[in-house]
């Protein structure tokens, strides 16, 4: 049993090291010789434009549900006026980044992993290496650049759709006035909230693209292996996104509190 635990721990540690080494290789190779624009553009289109509809629907329906729940839960306590703030705050700081990352992982991450995995098992990646081309630079770097630029934009879009969805429900279904939905946002939505959402979206983008590409590049075992790697890439990305969300929330709030305290001291 102990031997098994030791072996598994060693395997996981080796995998983390290998993953980190791939991320560094992608980062530095992209810095040294940036991937060609057509490759990046193709990935931007695939990740960004092709995900717009799914991200819009997710944000929109989440906004519906949030507005309805807030109205029912808070209305009887006379707090229906905070519906807009609640929807906006939840969408900007949590649900926008998380749900976008989940949807992009499901739609794009799995596809990236399957594509790279199938290239790996059919020796196409080895063929690339035999032609003196670093597959991390040619295949992963364009996906990485496209991912970290498109995922925050998709998150922003999803957040706006969520707030708009919440607005439709609050105003047209629950007869809240538009000003009572939007006005409190100016007071309660801070730059910190927006920064939190942006930082989370960026980190989730880095995680989901690198994890899915890593799993794809390390695929073994033919068609069954591609299926296995794809499932693992999605599950691992989801877990890492959720875990990192918690740690980011804690860290960002602690930094925010610290900054606020310093500012008040100076005043």
């Amino acid at each position, binding site marked *: 049993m102990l031997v098994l635990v030791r072996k598994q721990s060693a395997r996981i540690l080796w995998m983390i090291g290998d993953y980190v080494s791939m991320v560094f*290789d992608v980062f530095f190779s992209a810095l040294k010789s940036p991937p060609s624009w057509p490759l990046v553009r193709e990935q931007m289109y695939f990740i960004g434009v092709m995900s717009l509809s799914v991200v819009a629907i997710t944000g929109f329906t989440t906004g519906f549900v949030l507005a309805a729940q807030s109205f029912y839960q808070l209305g009887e306590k006379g707090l229906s006026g905070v519906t807009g703030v609640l929807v906006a705050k939840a969408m900007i700081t949590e649900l926008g980044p998380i749900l976008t990352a989940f949807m992009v992982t499901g739609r794009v991450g799995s596809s990236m992993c399957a594509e790279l995995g199938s*290239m790996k098992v*059919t*020796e*196409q990646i*080895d*063929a*690339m*290496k*035999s*032609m*003196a*081309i*670093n597959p991390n630079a*040619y295949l992963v770097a364009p996906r990485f650049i496209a991912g970290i630029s498109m995922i925050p934009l998709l998150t922003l879009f999803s957040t706006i759709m969520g707030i708009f969805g919440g607005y439709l429900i609050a105003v047209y279904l629950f007869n809240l006035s538009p000003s009572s939905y939007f006005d409190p946002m100016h007071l309660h939505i801070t730059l910190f909230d927006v920064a939190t959402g942006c930082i989370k979206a960026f980190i989730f983008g880095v995680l989901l693209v690198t994890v899915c590409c890593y799993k794809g590049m390390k695929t073994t075992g033919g068609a069954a292996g591609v299926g296995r790697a794809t499932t693992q890439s999605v599950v691992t990305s989801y877990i890492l996104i959720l875990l990192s969300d918690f740690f980011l929330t804690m860290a960002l709030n602690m930094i925010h509190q610290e900054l606020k305290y310093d500012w008040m001291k100076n005043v």
Partner: protein
Amino acid sequence: MIRVRNLWKRYGTNDVLRGLSLDANRGEILVILGRSGVGKSVLLRHIIGIEKPDKGTIEVEGVQITSLKKNEIYEAVKNMGMLFQGSALFDSMNIEENTSFYLKQHGDPKTGKPFPAAVIEHKVREALAMVGLEGTEKKMPSDLSGGMRKRAALARLIVYRPSILLYDEPTTGLDPITAQQINELIVQIQSELKGTSIVVTHDINSALFIADRLALHQEGQIIHVAEPKKFLNIDDPTIHFLKETFKIKESHK
């Protein structure tokens, strides 16, 4: 010139290469014979730097591949090429894009600048004509037969005229006519490029047709190397078996 010394590689508990040593000279085709699964392809993957050995050294044209860092390996293998068993054409690209891939990525080694589009087009057409695949430029790999895919992979290899050519089971799974076409192409490419070629196969007919020297790979080592005629006279049960097979095939002709 390729010089392999005391190469060891283990996968799990299986020692695939056990102190393998081998020399391949410039201008010759060295054919490595051996049963499936003895590590012939693994040897080629080590020579071209895709895999790292546990122990031992590989020297290619004076450069020790085994002591290089990952990024240095890419530079060192620029003058090498490998034909993969399953062709390994990029299935998201058409045949023209596959064939021009190396040229577009690396540009002109003399000037360090990208090749003009017309030069690339000319080189691609020339390479495809050499393997008899004119007119397939816009086809996708999935539209081609196994033999055509192999020839397209050969075109992708010869288009940049590497001085070291590695062929992994070039005729496996092909009908005798297509296999013979591939054999003739390998000989033709060798006579044009005059590089160092290593062919891994278990097809004795193919081996005898193309080889300048034959090597027998067994239990992770090269146990015999000789010119074809001398090779067939070596007193070894595997060579006796191969000779018998060849005789049977000859008697059928």
